[in-house]
């Protein structure tokens, strides 16, 4: 009976959530639906990094290169291939990120820990500097802007923000669902095993470098999709906007704020990050101060992030409730 109820509640909640998403642009207008798109993009990006960091224990300082490759791939394809549809273009962006991951794979799966992070810092910076300098391909500092963005139903997505919204939300929603699904599979369990004790997983007969390579490529794929949608929705892909070191650190910070090691933590982190950004722009100019204070507070007082804080609170409330119930019984 209780499980039935629980199931029913979750179905109703999900239905409500999807309905809100579906009618969001009509109810709240362009400004807020753009915010949802941005939230979805950075959620997918942070989740893709969390696949490496939270689930496999690999910290990367250069994840922006996959985000950027996705963006540049899509933008270049739309600019140079006439009549290309929007979905193939996103697919090409994804492919660009995957190809880059496959090229780097043999090099990076051998290492872990600091060396892994530093290797990514090196290649991330290399690609960033190259994107700045090879202006005849990438447009240098200006980046690639004003490329055509064909829609599925309309001529161009630029004039139809609602269509843009639906495309982004559906594609990114599918990505989030796929990543969630992956953590539930036996393969996802192996990843957690690698994080906790790579040697033991090796003894159990699983191939550690190969599984690392698979998860790495998948992570790059999702980051590529996020970057591709980012490029499309802004109609601009630039070195600083998609490839810079800041873009590599933003998801790390989000994951830390939200909570390391929980699936939905990064989404919470991204949401808080975005909320703070929005509020800062309205009330003060010093983004650094607010962000810095938040980071220090999170690390000092809630090391498992907001999701960790939530869990602790839940346990405390439950304990108090149980104690209260016990008291009533005895009295």
């Amino acid at each position: 009976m209780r499980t039935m109820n629980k199931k029913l509640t979750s179905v109703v909640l999900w239905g409500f959530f999807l309905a809100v998403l579906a009618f969001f642009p009509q109810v709240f207008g362009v400004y807020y639906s753009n915010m949802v798109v941005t939230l979805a993009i950075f959620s997918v990006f942070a989740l893709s990094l969390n696949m490496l960091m939270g689930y496999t224990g690999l910290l990367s300082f250069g994840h922006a290169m996959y985000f950027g490759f996705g963006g540049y791939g899509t933008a270049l394809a739309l600019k140079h291939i006439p009549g290309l549809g929007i979905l193939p273009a996103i697919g090409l962006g994804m492919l660009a990120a995957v190809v880059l991951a496959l090229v780097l794979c043999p090099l990076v799966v051998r290492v872990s820990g600091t060396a892994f992070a530093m290797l990514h810092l090196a290649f991330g910076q290399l690609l960033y500097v190259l994107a700045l300098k090879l202006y005849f391909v990438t447009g240098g500092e200006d980046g690639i802007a004003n490329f055509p963005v064909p829609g599925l139903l309309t001529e161009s997505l630029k004039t139809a923000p609602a269509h843009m919204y639906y495309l982004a939300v559906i594609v990114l929603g599918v990505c989030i669902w796929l990543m969630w699904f992956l953590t539930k599979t036996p393969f996802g369990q192996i990843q957690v095993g690698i994080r906790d004790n790579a040697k033991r997983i090796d003894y159990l007969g699983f191939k550690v470098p190969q599984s690392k390579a698979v998860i790495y490529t998948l992570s790059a794929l999702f980051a590529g999709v996020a970057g591709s949608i980012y490029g499309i929705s802004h109609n601009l892909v630039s070195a600083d906007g998609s490839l810079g070191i800041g873009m590599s650190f933003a998801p790390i910070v989000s994951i830390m704020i939200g909570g390391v090691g929980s699936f939905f933590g990064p989404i919470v982190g991204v949401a808080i990050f975005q909320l703070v950004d929005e509020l800062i722009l309205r009330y003060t100019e010093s983004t650094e101060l607010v962000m810095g204070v938040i980071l220090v507070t999170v690390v000092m007082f809630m090391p498992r992030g907001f999701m960790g804080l939530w869990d602790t609170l839940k346990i405390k409330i439950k304990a108090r409730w149980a104690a209260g119930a016990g008291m009533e019984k005895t009295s």
Partner: protein
Amino acid sequence: MNPTVSMYLSQGIHGIAYGMILFLIASGLNIIFGMMGILNMAHAVFFMLAGYFCYQVVTLTGSFWVGLLVAPLLTAVLGVLMERLFLRRAQKVGHFGELILTMGIGSVIVAAIKKIWGTESLPLQMPGMLSGMVNIAGMSYPVYRLFVIGLALLILVFMMLLLYRTRLGKIVRAAVSDRDMVNALGININLVFMFVFGVGTWMAGVAGVAIAPILTVFPGLADQVGMDAFIVVVTGGFGSLAGAFIVSIIFGLLSSYGVQFVSQFAPVLMVVFMAIVLAFRPNGLFGVKG
């Protein structure tokens, strides 16, 4: 002397001077990481802060020398405070949390700098006896760059003596290789950490003061030079002072000759060098720790 040769030589001196400054920052970063496992993202901010302190001291007292003495010490005091008040209490969150923590502290300091000194770039006057040129063997060099090289070498020698000729240095080196063991031997490791953090930020402070008259002081300084120093540490290998020294010089020369020959692609050179080194030696040129 042949003008081309003299130009190459003076470019070389420029490169070495910049490399020396990089080394001062990188070695502090390196020794802190080697010993405490902390990747101090606020290190470059301390470097910049020293420049601002020096600017303030020079406007108050009018003497660069007082600035050179006082500013790094003030920075070191702040560094020690940061270690004592924040990092030590955050030990349980692990190295990843510490990294984020130093990032947060760094950005608070940058915000404070912008609030106090504004965002414009502030010029710092070189002291009279260091401005101008000196003639050696028929060539003229800017005195200030030679002074920077000399200062860095002096600190290098001082550090080497401290690390390899004193009991304290022995403890520090032992703590780099196994801090728990050193702690178990009855040495107050927390005190040693505080000292090392202080020395590390002091060296960053000296570098900040030294570079201030060359590049002026502005809020983007930390990002610009800090990234280079970070790359030096990564390429040279964490925990290796010799690696940091050699790579600093290489990078200084790469950047000064790079600007001369392939000005467009000068920043690429350093990163390519780093990528190649790390591809073959993931722990850096002289790195021992994983």
